[in-house]
């Protein structure tokens, strides 16, 4: 199989392009997705290829265009709605939580909402407290939604197609720090399963559970620990709702120790949820309390050194593991 060099950004773009070529019902809508080429340049060139009907620049009206995506999905289309960042998506929270997630249930199963909402998330680029937060868990809390977080090129390339094929609303979180990530991808890479977590590195001493932008920091930490004789297993959740309990429980049952790495804040978070599930389902496998490395409980600050200190970092992850393994 031949492989080509690509980036996360290009992989997402390839996925959108493929979906739009394959299905005339698919269209892209959002702020600056057309003329500008996407605020993260993901949709560069798509307007030229597909035209203004299918690559629609919207006014700065998150609630209206996300709601319009819901309506268009109800009307038979397969919209991809891009919201610039999860922070702005709060302006559309009503439509996502009160309408997209509930319509199927409120209507007694009569209406499905086959909508995909893509949004960037995460910190690391000195964008301060209104452009940097990781609020994935707000959406992962809601029954009726599915939430995925592609962390690899293959997932960036493959999750979108699967999400579009899903009859229910799926939110895709793309960590803004990953768009420039380079790597090789098989030329015929395509849709991937979005229901299972993936073991990205195997190890016997501790299970590191993470997702999205934190995956790579966690892998770096695991690499460093390997040099000290600590073999860490790294599990990439991939799907934040539903959560693949089986994979994390299985891994913990091998290693007997778990550390959750989450760029969200610690309090009432995804990391809290993962921890609880491990305790509920694998209590007698635990040889140490479940650990967590999360963002500090502070809005993300602007200065680089403070921002870095607020976020999970490989060294923080590695020391948490060392503390867990040594008295």
């Amino acid at each position, binding site marked *: 199989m031949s492989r080509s060099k690509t980036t996360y950004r290009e992989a997402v773009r390839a996925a959108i392009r493929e979906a739009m070529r394959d299905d005339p019902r698919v269209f892209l809508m959002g702020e600056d997705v057309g003329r500008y080429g996407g605020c993260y340049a993901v949709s560069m060139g798509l307007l030229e290829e597909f035209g203004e009907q299918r690559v629609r620049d919207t006014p700065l009206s998150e*609630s*209206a265009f996300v709601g319009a995506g819901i*309506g268009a999905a109800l009307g038979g289309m397969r919209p991809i709605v891009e919201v610039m960042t999860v922070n702005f998506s709060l302006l559309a929270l009503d439509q996502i939580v009160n*309408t997209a997630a509930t319509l199927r249930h409120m209507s007694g199963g009569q209406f499905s909402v086959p909508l995909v909402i893509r949004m960037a998330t995460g910190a690391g680029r000195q964008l301060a407290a209104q452009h940097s937060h990781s609020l994935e868990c707000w959406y992962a809390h809601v029954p009726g939604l599915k939430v995925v977080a592609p962390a690899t090129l293959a997932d960036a390339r493959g999750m979108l197609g699967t999400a579009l094929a899903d009859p229910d609303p799926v939110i895709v979180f793309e960590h803004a720090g990953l768009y420039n990530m380079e790597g090789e991808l098989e030329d015929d890479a395509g849709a991937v399963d979005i229901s299972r977590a993936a073991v990205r590195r195997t190890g016997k001493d501790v299970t590191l559970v993470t997702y999205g932008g934190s995956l790579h920091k966690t892998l770096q930490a695991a690499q460093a620990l390997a040099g000290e004789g600590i073999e860490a297993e790294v599990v990439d959740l991939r799907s934040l709702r539903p959560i693949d309990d089986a994979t994390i429980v299985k891994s913990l049952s091998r290693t007997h120790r778990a550390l959750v790495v989450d760029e969200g804040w610690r309090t009432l978070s995804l990391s809290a949820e993962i921890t609880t599930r491990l305790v509920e389902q694998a209590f007698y496998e635990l040889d140490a309390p479940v650990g967590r490395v999360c963002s500090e409980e502070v809005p993300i600050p602007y200065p680089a050194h403070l921002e870095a200190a607020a976020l999970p970092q490989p060294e923080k992850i590695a020391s948490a593991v060392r503390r867990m393994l040594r008295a």
Partner: protein
Amino acid sequence: MTLTRDHGLHLYREMLRIRRFEERAAELYTEEKIRGFLHLYNGEEAVAVGVMQALQPQDAIVATYREHGHALAAGLPVNEVMAELFGKAAGSSGGRGGSMHIFDADLNFYGGNAIVGGGLPLAVGLGLSDRMLGRDRVTACFFGEGAVAEGEFHESMNLAALWKLPVLFICENNLYAMGTALDRSESETDLHAKAAGYRVASEAVDGMDVEAVETAAALAVDAVRTEGKPRFLECRTYRFRAHSMFDAQLYRDKDEVTEWKGKGPLLRFTKRLSEAGLATEDDLAAIDREVMEEVDEAVAFAEAAPWEPVASLTRHVYTDAQS
């Protein structure tokens, strides 16, 4: 447009059915057969009935949480709507929605939305899908005047006008957003002027006059269909009953309610029919009897209908998880 006897009696029956249905609903609420919030449409029947006359079967409807009138006028089976109010599995939404969330996929009835303004973006999206698929369909989107204060109203108005979407926005201006009078919440109380600000052709009509509503709606729907652009229709009306059942109505004078009741759509249309010699008292009494029977039958149906078993509680959350 000349009113014929048949059409006159049809309009009368449609409005009376809503009135009688909701009177029974209120009674059943006091008896605790119906729970949750129950928002009654008494006084506003001419709006739903008038607009529905202008729609074609393929057209879509987006309604609010005060939507019994829209559901019945759109042709949803009375039995199913009543069963929905009871929360029974035989209800329009399988009992999962209740009074505020009545849906019917077969009739393109996209539901009771209980978020004020929440239905407008949805209607814009339905219009967008129609535009993109080249489908001949108009979406009628009902909302109260309270929604005009929401950002979603302005965002939706702008988007529909910008993208030239086939949506008819129908503002049911009953003067009170729950307990807040229009002039206590809006700097501009002439609502149809707001739509004009988005270059949406708009008109205000007497919402207590079913013929006037029908005529205005027919023109507006026709314009949306032919021009492929949104329109805005403000129907000035009044709610005779409380906002919901548990409401002491401290915010308005009883005299005001009495005065509006004198202009009520049924009273007014009865007078119109008899003055035009289109119906006798006996004709109307016969309709009343038939409507009452229909409502009684709906209540009996709802009473007798089974509850959904708790075992299926988690249904209808995801499409692939149907049990």
